[in-house]
């Protein structure tokens, strides 16, 4: 499934993550991630985001994520919200 518009979810407050999603024409899943804990958890955060996108069956999506120390459950919830808003 593809998304049709740009959408955001989350905030830049601590323990949260701001996710912005937009459609792209490549058909791929592209992710730009910034995090205050990039060195320690960058890879984990990346996997949580990509797993959620895959679980929801979304292709052709560009994701910009600004993480402020969110736990996995928050990351998953914000990605899901952003995608649902963009469909």
């Amino acid at each position, binding site marked *: 499934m593809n998304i049709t518009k740009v959408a955001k979810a989350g905030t830049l407050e601590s323990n*949260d993550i701001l996710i912005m999603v937009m459609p792209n024409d490549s058909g791929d899943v592209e992710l730009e991630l910034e995090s205050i804990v990039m060195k320690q958890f960058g890879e984990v955060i990346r996997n949580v985001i990509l797993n959620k996108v895959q679980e929801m069956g979304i292709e052709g999506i560009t994701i910009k994520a600004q993480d402020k120390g969110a736990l996995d459950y928050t990351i998953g919830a914000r990605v899901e919200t952003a995608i649902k808003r963009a469909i």
Partner: protein
Amino acid sequence: MNKLRRSMLFMPGNNPGMLQDAAILGADSIILDLEDAVSLTEKDSARILVREAIKTIDYSQVEVVVRVNPLDTEFGAPDVDMIARVKPDTLLIPKADEEEIKLVDKMLNAIEKEEGFEAGSVKIMALVETAIGLENVYNIIKASKRVVGVLLGGEDLTSDLGIKRTKEGEEIFYARNKVATACRALKVDSIDTPFTDTNDYEGLERDTAKAKSLGLTGKAAINPRQIDVIHSVFAPTEAELKQAMRILAAMKEAEKEGKGVFSLDGKMVDAPVINRAKTTVGLGQRLGLI
């Protein structure tokens, strides 16, 4: 799970940090709020975040209550449908009336069947905060076997009544009596409205003591700093516990002698006094005081 409901702490449903901390703040129950604490544009986001929080975070030491949006808004039914599927302990239904409680009960019956949950396992607490709801509180509790308590919402109620809300709370005297009596009659918990000045601990103590003296069994909190004061008011004092235990000991002696009514320190002790003593000792035991 701790079944006491001395304190019920409201936590905003769209704040990840607060949802993470909610379990360890010492409240008996936490109310994850999807209604007033969440702006209209973030209802979808908070609903998903609260669902994920309940699935992920260990809330085993507290009762997890979710305040959904009113059923007559576009958000209420989706809230119930999504949240009930991760099995919170209780749903708090705002602006409760009989019809609304029956509707939620019906939705929960269907969801529990679909998800394979035990029938009746998700409980309901009614938030009574309208004049019509207050006058109907007995029937609201009777509307579903799931109803485990009533939370009195003083702010919305006084707004509905068109009267001023004060710190002294005389304007909700009738409402507190009415809720406490109906809840006692139907053996469910009655939770008092929160005290909104979070810096006034003496005021909070007086307000909680007033609620307790009218028969309410717990109090809502809007800040974790309020929990200790609320618990200290609802805990029986050492003197109350001692006296209650003396009454029960004297009762056993009287039973041996075949007496229904007896006297202790020159005062008559009969069934109501004994029942009160049993309640006090029971609470003391649950709190680990004896």
